[in-house]
């Protein structure tokens, strides 16, 4: 286990060390202490290392993650795991806006709440939120799955493409072209699998599914007011 103290080490130096690990590195277990809300921690990791950050982090933590398993033992600022490609990013506390924005793969777990625009423009990432998500979550989401154990804020799934949204609690309102859809056995199995991988409790039978009504896919003059 390698411990990096950010009271004594610059963020740039920590990220540089992690970026330059050889593919067959033995330095696979890392611990980062005293993050104190600093930005861009662990951005751009591309090795199968496991890093735990003890404390709250600032913006864009673990952005563009590939292969690494990152645990944030605290709250995360704006854009945690934005553009994640693969691997896992877990936030033990709450996440601020735009968690997992534009994520293309991998798994993002927020054990607490995520605020506005969680999963905005997601492109294949799976997101599991133990608590609730704020307004405009999954805005323009293209593919991937968003599982919300709590409630969802206003305008959920606005201008959605083909991502699937599963919510166990109440939905304050759906965005343009987002509709409730039947839960199939495959949906329930997907939710059960994601909850198990996230290690979060939840009853797949209580989740509802939301997806695209596909009315905005092509311009139609009758829908002009929705564009």
């Amino acid at each position: 286990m390698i411990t990096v103290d950010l009271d004594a080490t610059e963020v740039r130096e920590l990220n540089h060390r992690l970026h330059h690990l050889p593919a067959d590195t033995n330095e696979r277990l890392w611990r980062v202490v005293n993050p104190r809300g600093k930005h861009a921690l662990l951005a751009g990791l591309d090795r199968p290392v496991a890093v735990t950050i003890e404390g709250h982090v600032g913006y864009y933590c673990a952005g563009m993650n590939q292969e690494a398993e990152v645990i944030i033992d605290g709250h995360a600022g704006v854009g945690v795991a934005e553009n994640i490609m693969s691997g896992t990013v877990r936030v033990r506390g709450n996440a601020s806006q735009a968690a997992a924005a534009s994520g293309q793969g991998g798994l993002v777990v927020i054990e607490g709440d995520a605020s506005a625009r969680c999963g905005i423009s997601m492109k294949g990432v799976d997101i599991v939120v133990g608590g609730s998500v704020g307004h405009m979550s999954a805005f323009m989401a293209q593919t991937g799955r968003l599982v919300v154990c709590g409630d969802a804020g206003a305008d959920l799934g606005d201008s959605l493409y083909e991502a699937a949204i599963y919510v166990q609690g109440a939905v304050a309102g759906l965005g343009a072209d987002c509709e409730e859809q039947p839960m199939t056995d495959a949906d329930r199995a997907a939710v059960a699998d994601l909850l198990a991988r996230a290690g979060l409790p939840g009853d797949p039978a209580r989740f509802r599914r939301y997806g695209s009504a596909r009315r905005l896919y092509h311009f139609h003059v009758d829908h002009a007011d929705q564009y």
Partner: protein
Amino acid sequence: MCGIVGLFLKNEALRPLLGGWLARMLVEMGDRGPDSAGFAVYRRPAPEGAVKITLFHPDPAFAWAALAEGFAAGLGCRAAAERRGNHAVLTADVDEAAARAWIAAHHPELRVMGFGQRIEVFKDMGGPAAVAERFGLAGMDGTHALGHTRMATESAVTTEHSHPFAVGAELCLVHNGSLSNHNSLRRNLARHGIRFDTDNDSEVAAGYFAHQMQQGASLAEAMEAGLADLDGFYTFAVGTRDGFAVLRDPIACKPAILAETDDWVAMGSEWKAIAPLPGAERATVWEPKPATVYAWGRA
């Protein structure tokens, strides 16, 4: 971008440390706004019947003692000026309106930065570390304080355009964001007797809340009313004589984080601003919801 911070002490024993803590918070937000910085500190009250007026003169060698002498002679009262950088706090046992009228008539080059029984307001161009140092923020005691680091997007970079804006007695505001209907609001408020010193949008928000409270609204009610009348994006932190409140616009364009312990409540644009405070690691931490007023007060 801009960075805003607020600190409200619940534990009286911490009052001597207020300025030092706020300075650390402000410096952490320097990356969000290097153009200018400022802060308002609610300190020991002026004696009964007296008022404190924070004044700015661009000449750092301005003769504040002579000003106080002339002021006292002109208005037949006692007055003393305490210099801090290019500002001074004038304390006088005189009606606030008469004091402001005398200053406007005899020293039109002076700017009133804030006035009331407790509030003192200091702001200037430059980064937060330099501005805090210039005014000796770290040595200031008090009950609560607000600070701002500005990245100007909307109006000029001058001392007068810096935050906080203190338009009404004891009330001050810091703002991250920008308003789009400030010109019409300014005209309406001016008709109700609210005085503005600049063309800045945030000053209008300060004037709006001051006007609401003059009409009898509580701080929280004034901010609720603002949700309907202020068009734009914003995170506001507002201080009054005894209170402190935070409000984000309905789509939460601008960041904010709140933290509370048994000893204090802190607000910052980012967690970075709160992290250095003693006890922060044990604080309850949350992101304020959009269009929701969070207010604290002292009975």
